[in-house]
């Protein structure tokens, strides 16, 4: 392809895809009195938008809640999922095959379709507005994929390794924790990225199970903020910008892992 034409296309595509972010940044730094077009970058920085958004959307609390819930759920998913994959991958008895198939079939159930009964369950166990309930729900819905990825990866590790370790006096648990877990590191990275992004960005569960402002995560806090201050678009834009910033910064630095992790997780 013609080099100049290619370069032109590269620039055109990049510009086209950056538009929403460009508009968002413009809006966040514009003062309420400035009626100029959203395409116009202000030549000043109006930072009150950020302080107002930070205070009235309670973003500090929301970021803390999001971080807490994400870290807790991801840790639990990785632990429980990796543990489960060992017997399922290494001891494929008929019973274990049934368990494996059942676990994997859960991936078909889109979370929203069982919302009514799930919500009833969380109400019944007094889990509304608690961290533990939302964490457990996230863990439950992330486990099928996690188990699927871990068992798939375990199959690629030769069993001779297990046998050697068992002969050397490991029991199955120490074998798994000391020998296999370190080898599972690449797939653990994939799981952390896939599950972490999904939980950090989750709205569909959080909006139902976290109604008290003190426990709300970032997307839920923003949705409340958005409906309350729809006319203060500068505030809302600043709020959006603050809340996507952590993910964007991490993405820019760990881009390679993100692209690989997400794509691997889907393609498997």
């Amino acid at each position, binding site marked *: 392809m013609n080099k100049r034409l290619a370069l032109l296309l590269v620039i055109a595509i990049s510009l086209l895809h950056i538009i929403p972010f460009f508009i968002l940044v413009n809006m966040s730094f514009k003062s309420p009195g400035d009626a100029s077009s959203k395409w116009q970058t202000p030549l000043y920085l109006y930072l009150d938008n950020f302080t107002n958004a930070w205070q009235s959307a309670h973003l500090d609390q929301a970021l803390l809640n999001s971080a807490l819930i994400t870290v807790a759920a991801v840790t639990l998913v990785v632990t429980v999922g990796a543990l489960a994959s060992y017997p399922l991958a290494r001891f494929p008895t008929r*019973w274990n095959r049934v368990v494996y198939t059942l676990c994997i079939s859960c991936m078909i159930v889109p979370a929203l379709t069982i919302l*009514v009964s799930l919500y009833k369950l969380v109400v019944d166990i007094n889990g509304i507005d608690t961290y533990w309930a939302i964490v457990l729900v996230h863990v439950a819905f992330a486990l*099928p994929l996690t188990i699927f990825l871990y068992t798939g990866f375990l199959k690629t590790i030769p069993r001779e390794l297990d046998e050697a370790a068992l002969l050397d006096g490991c029991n199955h648990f120490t074998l798994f924790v000391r020998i296999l877990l370190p080898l599972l590191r690449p797939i653990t990275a994939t799981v952390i990225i*896939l599950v972490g992004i999904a939980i950090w*960005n989750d709205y569909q569960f959080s909006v139902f199970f976290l109604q008290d402002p003190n426990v709300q995560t970032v997307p839920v806090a923003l949705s409340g903020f958005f409906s309350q201050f729809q006319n203060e678009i500068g505030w809302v834009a600043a709020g959006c910008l603050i809340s996507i910033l952590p993910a*964007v910064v991490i993405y820019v630095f760990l881009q390679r892992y993100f692209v690989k992790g997400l794509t691997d997780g889907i393609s498997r």
Partner: protein
Amino acid sequence: MAHVTRSPVAHAAALAKPEGGLPSTRRRRRPSHWPINLMYLPAVLIMSAFIFYPFIQGIHISFTNWDGYSQQYKMVGLEQYRRLLSDPVVLRTIGNTFIYGCGSTLLQNVLGLAYALFLDQKIRGKGLVRTIVYLPIIISPLIMGYICYFLFQYDGGAANDILHVLGRAPLDWLSNGTAAVWIITLVNTYQYMGISMVIYLAGLQAIPKEYLEAAALDGASGWSRFRQVTVPLLMPAITISVVYNVIGGLKLFDVIIAMTNGGPGNASQSLSTMMYNLYFAREDAGYAAALGNVMFLIITVVGLGLLRYLRRREVQL
């Protein structure tokens, strides 16, 4: 996906592959091994409590007239499903859901493949394009919906500013139901086309260059090389990308809530947002549960059906 929100494909792929399931390595059924199975007990318990049990409970609720909070309700048999079939809003909603699912799938795959073909060459700045196209995937779809709301809002929206420069009257994009449905589809496409792009890019890089060179030597034109060599070898990537996008689109929720909240009226409602409305705004839990089951059925049938259809074509080639 994202979510794991957008994850059922991989597993569906596992079910459909003939070799899916566990490796049939040597069976060891020495009795001393059974305590090892305790290692999956926590996982099974959590999933039973929060997936299996609610799933079965949901089927039960769909046969009742439960309102979502009171202790009393009675069994009404298939009444809720009968209501579904005669409800024009539900039929429109199912139509919308298919536009969200199939429309975004078509756009994401066509655009994703085009971008991948473009980036598969030696081009300066292709890393930058990949980074930018992929970026929206890590952002919450709800926030993406808000950002795009600013693009299409009537008063001072970015799209209307372009119309203004062109000397046209501003349009109220999101107040027209059909337009709103397609704008939401576009936003979903914009956000997740990077996934298709990366899947296709990986697929293209796995195609041996000799095949294309051999075809070129035999006198095949650019288009027929693409049709006869590239596409067949790309079928596995196409399967993954299409099934993944269809399921993601059929489940679409956050973007709709952010941009139109299902409105105007019910014109841009999807099955997920409709369920949310029925349960929390209209306290019609039995009906919402029935709708959930219908949605489950639609997604499973469409997802697995497409998967089997595409996989068969892979085998033939």
